[in-house]
C-alpha cells in the first residue's frame, strides 16, 4: 500500500495564518508584547486589553460553534491561531471562562444559563476561575471534599479549593462539589457556579517558589448558592468535569512555546562564551540543543497528526495524554538548557525587574534575568492539568488490556 502524505498547509490555511498575523501586528500593543517577552508581571488590565481586542474581532471564543458567537474554526485553524498568538508574544487567553466553562455550558447548560453566561464570557464581563483541586484531592480529583448541602432553594457550600490560577482577579468560579456524601467518589459530584462576592467566599494567595503570586486558595464557609446555579444534573458533575478536561486541547503539547524557547536558546548560546568562544561551538552543548530540536521536530508532526485527525472529526484519545507528557518534558528541557547556557549568569535574581516600567541596568545580559525563574516555574507543567503520572495511568489503563 502506498500512502501519499502531505505535510504542507493548504493555501487556504496559509492565508488564514497571514490574516491572524496581520491582525496581531495591527492590534497587539507593542508595550504589551514587550512585557510578555520580558516575563514581566501582567495586570488584570493587560489580559483584558488583548481579550477585548479578540472580542471586537469575534475571535475570543475560538473553540465555540458559530451559533454561540464562536469562530467555527476547524482544528487546523485553531492550531494556527494558537501558534500565531504565542509567536506574537500576546498574553495568554485566560482559559477558564471561554475555553473551559463555555463548552460545558454549550453542551450541558440550560437555555437560561446559556443566555445569561455565554454573552458575559464573550464580552469579558465575567472573569471565571476553576474550582477543581483541593488540598486532599489533586491527582485523585474525585476524592474532593467540598460539600454542597441541599437547603431547599439553595445549596450551602463548605470547603476549600486550591491552586486557583488568577483567582484573585475572578468574579465567578465553577466548582466541583460533593452533593451526595454517601455515593462512591465519582458519583456524588455536582458542577456548581458560584459568585465570588457571595458572603463566605475568601481568596488567599499562594506564593510559589519563584516568589510570584499567580495561584490561590479559595475558601467557602456557609456560602449560599442558588439552586439554578447547578450545571446539568445533580450528582452527575463528574461527567461534565471530564468533558471539560478532555475537551479538544489542540495546544496541549505547547509546541509553539518550545519552538520560541529553542530559538531563544540558540541566540543565547551564540552570545554566551565558553573559554572565550561562543557556547554554540561547544560540540557537546550543541549536540544537546540538536537532540532537543529533533524531539521537538518529531513532536510537532505528532501534534499535527492529532490536530489533522481532529479536523476530520476524530476525537483525540490517548494522543492527548501522550502529547501532554512529551510536551511538558520537551518544554522543561528548553528551560533547563537555557539555564545551563547562562552559566553563572543564571544566579542573579532581581524581583523588581519583573515590574512594569523597570528600566535599570540588569545584572549581566538583559535576557538572563528571567531564565532561572522560568526553569523553576515550569516545574509545574508536569504536575498540573493531570500530572504526567496520572496521564501514564490513563494511557496504560485504556490501551494495553493488561
Amino acid at each position, binding site marked *: 500500500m502506498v500512502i501519499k502524505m502531505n505535510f504542507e498547509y493548504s493555501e487556504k490555511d496559509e492565508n488564514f495564518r497571514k490574516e491572524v498575523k496581520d491582525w496581531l501586528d495591527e492590534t497587539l500593543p507593542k508595550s504589551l508584547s514587550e512585557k510578555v517577552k520580558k516575563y514581566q508581571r501582567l495586570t488584570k488590565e493587560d489580559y483584558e486589553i488583548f481579550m477585548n481586542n479578540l472580542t471586537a474581532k469575534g475571535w475570543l471564543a475560538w473553540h465555540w460553534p458559530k451559533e454561540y458567537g464562536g469562530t467555527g474554526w476547524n482544528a487546523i485553524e485553531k492550531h494556527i491561531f494558537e501558534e500565531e498568538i504565542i509567536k506574537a508574544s500576546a498574553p495568554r487567553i485566560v482559559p477558564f471562562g471561554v475555553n473551559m466553562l463555555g463548552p460545558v455550558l454549550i453542551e450541558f447548560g440550560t437555555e437560561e444559563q446559556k443566555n445569561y453566561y455565554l454573552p458575559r464570557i464573550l464580552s469579558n464581563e465575567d472573569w471565571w476561575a476553576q474550582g477543581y*483541586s483541593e488540598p*486532599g*484531592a*489533586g*491527582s*485523585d480529583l474525585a*476524592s474532593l471534599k467540598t460539600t454542597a448541602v441541599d437547603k431547599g432553594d439553595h445549596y450551602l457550600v463548605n470547603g476549600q479549593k*486550591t*491552586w486557583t490560577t488568577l483567582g484573585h482577579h475572578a468574579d465567578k468560579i465553577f466548582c466541583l462539589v460533593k452533593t451526595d456524601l454517601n455515593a462512591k467518589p465519582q458519583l456524588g459530584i455536582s458542577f456548581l457556579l458560584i459568585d465570588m462576592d457571595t458572603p463566605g467566599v475568601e481568596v488567599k494567595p*499562594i*506564593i*510559589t*517558589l*519563584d*516568589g510570584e503570586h499567580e495561584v490561590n486558595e479559595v475558601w467557602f464557609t456557609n456560602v449560599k448558592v442558588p439552586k439554578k446555579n447547578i450545571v446539568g444534573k445533580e450528582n452527575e458533575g463528574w461527567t461534565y468535569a471530564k468533558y471539560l478536561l478532555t475537551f479538544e486541547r489542540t495546544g496541549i503539547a505547547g509546541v509553539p512555546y518550545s519552538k520560541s524557547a529553542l530559538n531563544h536558546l540558540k541566540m543565547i548560546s551564540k552570545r*554566551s*562564551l*565558553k*573559554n*572565550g568562544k561562543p557556547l554554540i561551538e*561547544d560540540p*557537546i*552543548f550543541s549536540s544537546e540543543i540538536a537532540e532537543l530540536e529533533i524531539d521537538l521536530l518529531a513532536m510537532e508532526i505528532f501534534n499535527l497528526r492529532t490536530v489533522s485527525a481532529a479536523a476530520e472529526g476524530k476525537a483525540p484519545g490517548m494522543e492527548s495524554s501522550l502529547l501532554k507528557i512529551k510536551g511538558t518534558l520537551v518544554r522543561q528541557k528548553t528551560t*533547563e538548557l537555557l*539555564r*545551563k547556557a*547562562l*552559566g*553563572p*549568569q*543564571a*544566579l*542573579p*535574581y*532581581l524581583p523588581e525587574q519583573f515590574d512594569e516600567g523597570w528600566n535599570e541596568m540588569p*545584572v*549581566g545580559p538583559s535576557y538572563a534575568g528571567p531564565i*532561572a*525563574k522560568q*526553569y*523553576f516555574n515550569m*516545574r*509545574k507543567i*508536569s*504536575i*498540573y492539568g493531570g*500530572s*504526567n*503520572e496520572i496521564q*501514564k495511568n490513563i494511557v496504560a489503563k485504556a490501551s494495553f488490556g493488561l
Partner: protein
Amino acid sequence: MDFTLSEERKMLQETVGKFFNSNYKNIEKRSENVNLPEGYSKEFWKESSDLGVISALVSPKFGGLGGSGEDISIIFELVGKSLCVEPFLSSAVLSSTVLSSISNPRNDLITDIIEGNLLISFAHCEMNNRYEDHYIETNAYLKNDEWNINGTKSFVMNGDDASKIIVSARINGDVNDRNGIGLFLIDNDQTLKRPYNTIDGYRSTELTFKDLKGELLAKDENALKCIIKANSAGALALSAEALGIMQICFDLTLDYLKTRKQFGKSIGAFQSIQHRMVDMMLEIEQVKSAVMLASSTFETDDLTRDKNISAAKNLVGRVGKLIAEETIQLHGGIAMTWEYSAAHYAKRLIMIDHLMGDSDYHRDRFKLLSNS
C-alpha cells in the same frame, strides 16, 4: 580500609549539626537571615567562629584546627542540610585557601577570618569567564611602584559586606592566557558595588574597580595554582553541601509519600513511585561515595585532587538535577510553594551547578586530567 569517621570528626559533626539546627530551625528562620541587610546573620557568623566552625575549615599550619578534605565535607554537608547563607564558602574556604597557598602565607589575615573579625571575599568570576580558572579580563598595571586594578568582577559572594577582597587580574598577555595572572588584596571601601540576591537566596555582588590600589599576593604560576586550588576547594565544599541537601530532599519526599493519600492509599504504596525513590537513593549513595573519595585525596597531589573533585562535582550536577526535579514532581504542587522547605532545597541544589564549574565543566576537566 576504613570508611568511618574518627571520634573527633564524629564529635565535630554532632556539635556543629546541633548548633546549625538551633539557629536554622525552619525555612522562615532562614528567610529572616536572607533578608538581613548583609544577606546573612552576623550574629550567627560570630557564634560560628566562637564555636570553632570556621577554624575547622583551616589547617593547623595556618592557625586553624582542621582544614582537611574530610573537615570541609563534614561542615558543608551540614551547611547544606540547614541551607546556611553565612559566608562559609566565600571567606572561610575560598579566601583562606588563597591566603594559605601563596608563597608567603598570610596567617595574620587568616586568623582574623577564623576569629570572625574579618570578612574577605574572593573575586575571580567575571561576566564572560564562565567557570574558567585563567580567563581574566580585569587587568592590573604597575605605576610608581603601585599596582592599579581596573575591571569588573561578577558573582562575588558576600562582596558587599566583606572589608577586603582578593582579586584576580591580568598583568600581561591575552585574556585567555594561563600566564600573566596576578592575585591582589584590596580594601573594599573604594569599590563600586552592586549587591543582589541570587535566586536561591545568597548574597552576591558585582564589583567595579577604577585604578584601585592593590597589594600583590601572587603572580604567574603561583597565582594560577592558588586560583585552581581555591576553586577546587570550593567545588569540594559545594559537592558536600549538595550531598546534605540531597539527603534532606530524600527524607522530605519519603515522609510526604507516606502521609499523602490519594486513591485510598499513601502515594508511596505505588510501585512506580517506589522505584523512583530507589533510583534517588542509589544516586545519592554514588554522590556520597564520590564526595568521600574527593575529600580523602584533597591533600594529595594537585592532579589527583582535581580529578576526584571534578568527578564529585560532575556527579553532583547530574544527580542534583534528578533529586531536585524528582523532589518537586513526587510531592506535586505543594513543593512549588514558597512556604514549604523542599522548594528552597531544590532551588539551592540546582543553582549549586552554576557555581565553581557545572557538570559540563567538570566532565571536561575530568577528561583532561584523566587522560594526562
